[in-house]
């Protein structure tokens, strides 16, 4: 039986906080298919960030198995995980994490740099990615010359440029006003149509409303896992105008 894009089987993650053992994930099992737009919700300390880090191959589970695209990745080395993040994943962060004093284009090129692509191919693909997020005319701008929404779109272009199967977004709208947040959610919704899976961590239910599936985490366990009719994000004028 072909596996789903993401399959977690009884994943446990323990941390040592000094002498105390903290169980961040207490046996999580879930499956996410290609093209899904999943929102992971939970209060702070619920384990949602740990879950995100594991799904994003930034961390390894203490026990349990994780299959990404049919391959088990739970026991890979740091270098192998880096390779997977580079080729199969894209990250979007709350605080954008763009390199300061570096142009939008160069920021977007970053994942391709670690793929070892030659300069002209990098620039070409980064340009295409920026056009995809409607920032074709801001390529040479530095992050501090861009608005918050534009910065986050540069970050999304950076996540997209490596043509990943999965994009992980950690509170991507946390630093944005509500109108720009809707723009960004519209962008994420459009990715699903192209077969890109989006996993979004948020604690705002009106942001989670744009997802087609909501997973609620509490005390390291999946509390609720429900599909929903996603609220359609209206493409704001700012995005279509630019």
């Amino acid at each position, binding site marked *: 039986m072909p596996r789903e894009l993401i399959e977690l089987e009884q994943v446990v993650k323990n941390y040592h906080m000094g002498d105390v053992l903290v169980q961040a994930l207490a046996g999580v099992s879930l499956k996410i298919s290609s093209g899904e737009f999943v929102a992971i919700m939970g209060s702070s300390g619920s384990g949602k960030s740990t879950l995100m880090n594991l799904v994003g191959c930034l961390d390894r589970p203490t026990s349990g198995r994780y299959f990404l695209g049919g391959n088990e990745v739970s026991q890979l080395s*740091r*270098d192998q995980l*880096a390779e997977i*993040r*580079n080729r199969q994943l894209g990250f979007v962060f709350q605080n954008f*994490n763009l390199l300061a004093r570096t142009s939008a284009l160069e920021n977007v090129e970053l*994942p391709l740099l*670690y793929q*070892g692509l030659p300069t002209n191919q990098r620039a070409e693909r980064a340009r295409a990615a920026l056009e995809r997020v409607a920032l074709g005319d801001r390529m040479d701008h530095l992050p501090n010359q861009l608005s918050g929404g534009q910065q986050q779109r540069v970050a999304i272009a950076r996540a997209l440029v490596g043509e990943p199967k999965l994009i992980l977004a950690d509170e991507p709208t946390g630093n944005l006003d509500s109108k720009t947040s809707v723009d960004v959610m519209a962008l994420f919704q459009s990715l699903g149509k192209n077969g890109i899976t989006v996993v979004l961590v948020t604690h705002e239910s009106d942001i989670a409303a744009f997802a087609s599936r909501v997973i609620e985490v509490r005390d390291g366990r999946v509390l609720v896992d429900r599909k929903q009719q996603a609220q359609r994000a209206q493409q704001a004028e700012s995005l279509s105008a630019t």
Partner: protein
Amino acid sequence: MNLWQTIRVAVRALRRNKLRSFLTTLGIIIGVGAVIATVAIGEGAKAKVQEAFASMGSNLLIIMPGTSVAGGAHGGFGSMPTLTWDDLKAIQSEVASVELAAPLLFSNMQVASEEQNWSTRVSGTTPDYFTIRNWPMAKGRPLSQSDVDTGAKVAVLGQTVVDKLYGPNSDPVGQTLRIKSVPFLVIGVMAKKGQSPVGTDYDDAVSIPTTAYLSKIQGGLKNYLSGMIFVGARSLEATRRAEIEIAALLRDRHHLQGGIDDDFSIRNLTEMASAQEQGTKTLTTLLSSIAAVSLLVGGIGIMNIMLVSVTERTREIGLRMAVGAKPRQILIQFLVESLTLSTLGGLLGIAAGLVTAQRLASTFDWPMLIRPDVIVIAVGFSGLVGVVFGLYPATRAAALDPIDALRYE
């Protein structure tokens, strides 16, 4: 990601903080510059010393009549004329390692042209003296053997004497020079030689044949040579041998038993030169060690700034790891950054060192000698400093956990 791309990423990162990058390299610039400048100047000083001794004459030994010891009190050199004319002949004919030997009798006295007078050193000598001293003529002819044989009243002048008596740029050949009221015919002017290593002006001298000196200027004891003997050895290597052989010969001729001090002294200028050279070398070594220490301090400066940079860019490192940088690539990136800093510092240091050496050389009128090997070593060493002191910060960067790094505030 290949090395070239890594270097470009590193240079871009350094360019984002131009002032800090420059200040960081300053330690290396000063260190390398100081090493290069001190060595260049040290080599220049060495060359200067060599040149000075070479101008006194090569393979040169000077034999002085001995000290008298009267009641335990030592007189100075020449306080007793112990060298004889026969000693000179014996040295010339019996010592194989000696090429030439010439007497030099001298005294300071008043000399006068038609218009001027001047007090200078008047020497009685033979043509060989000029050969031993490597002293060519600028004008006219040198003393000849027949001048010595006939006791001709002819004189060869040094440039300083010409300037004082006849005026600069004048040609005194054919004019009359009075020494102690005795007229001498000026037959030649010696080439300018400059100063001795102790500051004596070689050009402030008048040379006349020994015979004329003895008969007209200052009669001496008949058999005794009341001056010095200049000896030119056959080669540089033979100088030391000549010194030993002459000493043995003179002890034998003077019937000195074992245990009795020499009644003469031999100065070996080659040895004096090498002693002086040794002195400059020691000084250069000392100075360049101090400079090397400043290179080390520069390296610590690089390490310090790289550590600050790693801390400051923790989030950047986390992000690079999140988008797929392997720990090794992060390590190499930071290593290349520190290497770039130190190598750039090394190159700028070379420029600074050369300019400094050039300035000092022209200020003190010293020759400046650039040693290419020192430049290569300095750059290599600064590169090494970059790797050694960059390794720890780079390792720390590579060991960061991407999750913690991304969350770092």
